């Protein structure tokens, strides 16, 4: 299956002028996540049902009796975005089959943050992917539990200081490496997995459009810059997102039916320090820890390149022998 239409033609003037995630919400200044949601909604269009696991986005956008959502939207507990999304999809399917609702392509979309996806929601996410629901899951990863006051998550990068991985004499902050959830999703053999960033809006929206077209589960991992939690200047949000890509900390790629493709090519990776130095959460890092992070980034980036180059050839191979000779 090739789901790529000519998405490269997607130009700014073709972007929907309708706002589905409206202004007036309570996000912090420079919130990368609110921007990403706005772009996502534009790419999805109105025939969408959004299941939103609790977190910043639910709190800032749905303070009763106001709402920023111009789409059908349901809010649920922390760990259940994928499960409720599955239910929405299955329910719509059943009603369509019985002829109770018009036969339209209404996409079920589940969204949650890094805590709700990578920690407590992993189980329901894995279940939804395994069952093969026609569901798009978008993880807005701001690399900690920002809504509750910046506690570490398994998405928090190595060395970052948070309130539950404090930096000081006894510790340099987060001591584990970021969990690679896109890879876990690829391991579920789903048709479409991608990483994205609102700093590359057309790339991000293309990916959402593709994922919307996919019949079956798809997963997009979006790095959402959080000036409040990252202790970065709020006017640097877009730049921080770009630096994450340019340093190779967060490469933008997609995996279609197991085939890897880098969507935003970087000719030469910038030193990781360019990215770290703008963020207060990394301020305490000593050169040797930065060196460790640099090593790891190169390692992971090379692994990704191997998959892009290697798996491409590999996945075209057809098995022609006989089993159990």
């Amino acid at each position, binding site marked *: 299956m090739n789901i790529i239409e000519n998405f490269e033609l997607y130009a700014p003037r073709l972007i929907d002028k309708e706002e589905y995630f409206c202004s007036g919400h309570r996000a912090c200044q420079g919130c990368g996540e609110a921007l990403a949601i706005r772009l996502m909604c534009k790419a999805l269009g109105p025939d969408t049902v959004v299941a939103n696991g609790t977190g910043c986005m639910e709190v800032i956008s749905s303070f009763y009796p106001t709402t920023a959502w111009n789409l059908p939207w349901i809010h649920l507990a922390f760990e259940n975005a994928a499960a409720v999304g599955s239910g929405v999809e299955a329910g719509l399917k059943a009603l369509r089959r019985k002829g109770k609702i018009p036969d339209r392509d209404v996409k079920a979309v589940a969204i949650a943050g890094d805590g709700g996806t990578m*920690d407590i929601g992993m189980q329901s996410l894995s279940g939804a992917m395994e069952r093969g629901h026609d569901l798009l899951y978008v993880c807005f990863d701001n690399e900690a539990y920002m809504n509750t006051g910046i506690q570490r998550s398994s998405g928090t990068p190595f060395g970052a200081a948070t309130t*539950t991985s404090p930096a000081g004499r006894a510790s340099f902050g987060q001591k584990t490496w970021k969990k690679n959830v896109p890879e876990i999703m690829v391991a579920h053999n789903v048709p479409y997995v991608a990483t994205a960033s609102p700093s590359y809006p057309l790339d991000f929206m293309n990916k959402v459009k593709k994922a919307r077209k996919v019949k079956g589960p798809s997963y997009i991992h979006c790095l959402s810059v959080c000036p409040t939690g990252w202790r970065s200047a709020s006017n640097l949000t877009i730049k921080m997102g770009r630096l994450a890509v340019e340093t190779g900390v967060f490469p933008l790629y997609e995996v279609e039916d197991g085939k890897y493709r880098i969507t935003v090519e970087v000719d030469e990776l910038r030193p990781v320090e360019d990215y770290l130095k703008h963020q207060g959460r990394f301020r305490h890092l000593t050169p040797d820890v930065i060196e460790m992070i640099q090593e790891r980034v190169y390692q992971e980036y090379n692994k990704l390149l191997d998959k892009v180059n290697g798996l491409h050839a590999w996945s075209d191979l057809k098995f022609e022998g006989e089993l159990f000779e």
Partner: protein
Amino acid sequence: MSKKVLMRGSQAIGEAAVRAGCRFYAGYPITPQNELTEYMAEAMDGLNDGTFIQAESELAAINMVIGASMAGARAMTSSSSPGISLKQEGISFLAAQELPAVIVNTMRGGPGLGNIAPSQSDYFQATRGGGHGDYRTIVLAPASGQELADLTRTAFEYADKYRSPVLILGDGMMGQMMEPIVFPEPIDVRTFSPKSWILDGAKGRPSRIILSLLLNPPEQEDLNWRLARKYEIITREIPMSESYMTSDANMIVIAYGTAARIAKGAVKRVRELGLKVGLLRPITLWPFPNRPLKELSRHVREFLVFEMNMGQMIDDVKLALEGRGNVHFYGRPGGIISTPDEIAKTINSIYHRQHLEED
């Protein structure tokens, strides 16, 4: 005697736990109790024998506490209402396996995700077991910063003494408010007497087994009987309450935690008007302090239950009174904090409606 320190309620629980010899804490972010998790992250880092784990979910946190408790450590976890719901399976296991543990619930408005404002919405869940199965949990309800600290130590003592989970039931107000606190001297964990039942490697001795699956009904019945006997002892030994101006009262307000502090203000106000009103504040919610209520019911006819919910403790009050006296109720749910004036008005209207001034 250590000196007075100004501290937030949640942090006071953390400091008191460390001083009570708690060396294992597992938590998960949820408002309004993150200050406790954050405090434990720093405090455990500073101890060379302490462990702090931020779990991947509430369920994982409570099960880590089960593990730590089995290994013999004084272990604690904390959360707020929706998170405590997720922990119920683990609390049921703690009860079945007779493992000591301290669980802190900083209650907020519910049901569902509710809000993050102080509430007393989880009284039923806390005192009626909460999880599945035939069990009880000791529930302590502090009403001040000092009491948070004191009852945290008590909680660890009860947990070890009765080999049972103990719940500290606070609310967003208790957790966030800053008050001066005097902490007790820290206990040296090396002075704890060794526990005879822990799982710590079986070299040179027969292995021990802790389980909660008893497929054979008579075995399960034995466990239930053993637990029931234990609960009977607890019910006899630990009920705690505070009586305030009850000796000459002809009307009694019953409230716990934050609600009790508001009610105390209201009682002071109506006393100035000459109304003979007293306050009974349960400190243990399970076991419920039945006896003082029963004694009061000999000469008091009117009882007003004030809760920050739509009426949960009122059931226990009625059970304790066994039909004697009139039980009135005033409640504000959803995270609304009443003012003492509001309660005073309610007291006033009941007082005059029932013609108590003529007594």
